[in-house]
């Protein structure tokens, strides 16, 4: 799990750097009169992946924006139950994204990305892969939480 996280982090950072360089080079080359037509298409392809993989990084650090005006006043036991329910709902949403994301990937293999020969489906693929990774993160987090609750109960 740790290795996977490290790889993912490095992939995200490379994606972000690559997007910056692609767009910057394209802008500079166009200004000097040598436009690169494919660079923006590639940048957008990479951006879809950055969004989904980055969202998993955010999830790992529990930094997704959450509203706690209602839940903060509940007793601890209810807070625990609600957060379990929230995890279940998130797992459901992600499972749907993985299933339908794969269907989308298989829908139209002929369509290509803008000016390139790269199939559009590789943009769509970011969705089930990112969703699947987030699903793994959530399952791991829930497992750990469940375990610690049980352990405390045993003591």
């Amino acid at each position: 799990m740790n290795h996977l996280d490290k790889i993912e982090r490095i992939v995200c950072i490379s994606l972000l750097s690559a997007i910056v360089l692609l767009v910057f080079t394209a802008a500079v080359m166009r200004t000097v009169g040598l436009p690169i037509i494919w660079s923006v298409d590639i940048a957008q392809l990479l951006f879809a992946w950055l969004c989904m993989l980055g969202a998993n990084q955010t999830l790992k650090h529990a930094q997704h924006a959450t509203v706690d005006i209602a839940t903060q006043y509940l007793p601890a036991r209810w807070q625990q139950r609600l957060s379990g329910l929230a995890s279940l709902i998130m797992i459901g949403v992600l499972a749907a994204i993985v299933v339908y994301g794969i269907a989308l990937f298989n829908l139209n293999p002929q369509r290509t990305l803008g000016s390139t020969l790269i199939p559009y489906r590789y943009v769509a693929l970011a969705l089930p892969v990112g969703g699947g990774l987030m699903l793994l993160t959530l399952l791991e987090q829930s497992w750990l939480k469940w375990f610690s609750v049980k352990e405390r109960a045993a003591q």
Partner: protein
Amino acid sequence: MMMLLIFLALLLAGVPLAFSLMASGLLFFIMHDSLPVLVAVQRMVSSSQSFPLLAVPFFILAGHIMNASGITSRLISFANLLVCWISGGLAHVTIVLSALMGGVSGSAIADAAMQARILGQPMEDSGLPRGFSAAIITVSALITACIPPSIGLILYGYMGNVSIGKLFIAGLLPGALLTIALMLCVRWVASSQKLGNTETQKPQAFREVMIAAGRCKWALLFPVLMIVTIRWGIFTPSEAGAFAVVYAVLVGLFAYRELTFAQLYSALNESVRDIGMIMLIVLAAGTVGYVIAFQQLPVELAQSVSAVTQSPLLVLMICLALLLVIGTLMEGTITVLLLTPILVPVIQSVGIDPVHFGILLVLVVTFGGTTPPVGIAMYTVCNIMDCPITQFIRHVWPFYLTVLVVLLLLALLPELVLFLPDYVYATP
């Protein structure tokens, strides 16, 4: 309606914003047989495939790198020299700093957090009450939200099909107006309540100020470069974002020699998490936006509003009041993403300029983030400064009033907002 209820229920139950949106959007598709669920997923993918949207990750990353490359710290010492002697002392520094940082960083909340961390303690040491310091740091974040580059303006332009370049230029004058108004307010409060000790401070000689400005010329030059390149079509706003990142790295490496590889790595790493948070919300909003359009909500709303009144001013006021209420209850990004496509057709149907409305919308929504009950900027700053909300509220009301007066002025006088973009974009 159903979707809204489900969304709110999930949100209040503690499901993260992005997931609440996705869950309610997906449920709507599943319950309607005429809508294939594949479209919902397809909309999420296609939301990411927009070139203007690329400006968002770029300006987030640029902000992080500017902090690491020494640009931010130089701007702080410059702001300090410039206004520290005015009654109210460091409170003016945070206002001017927001205006200067507004020109390089896109995120109001990140900016407020940074200022709370760096200026919070010195402000208290200089004799300003903690609640007062927290209040002015939070409210001055509004200036950042309005001076380009601003993530809020980018998202508004993306959702409402409005020129981001024009929005950027339109934000300059209101940002300056807010800066001056807040400084006057701080001066008045500080001198009437004898806050902070500035007796020993004197205005700096012009020469000193120019020397300090020279030390941060690279940072001060950047907003000028950005506006010029965008206006004359050398760069689009997204390309200017990529340029900002490269510029910040180069200045940090070669001009200031402060940026290390490890810092660059952690700036990238933190940006990835910020981008993941904000972009998952944008993707989820793609699905919900489709549902809103499918139900023809904007058209219906525009029709029912124009049936009630044709007065642009009245419509504008109704929209702003609505935004103010929703903005205080809801997180800012999501308000911009969901309400822009609904409200822009409404205001356009009575002849209000969408650029004018965009500046007001972003300001009102960001203002909502500085007020209870769901003020993310307020909570962030109070958390960092360890300031009780009650103290914050006791000191914040003069600033709220100032902001509301400025907002009213901007709403009543569209020329204040539109003068600059109309002048700059006038065909020669």
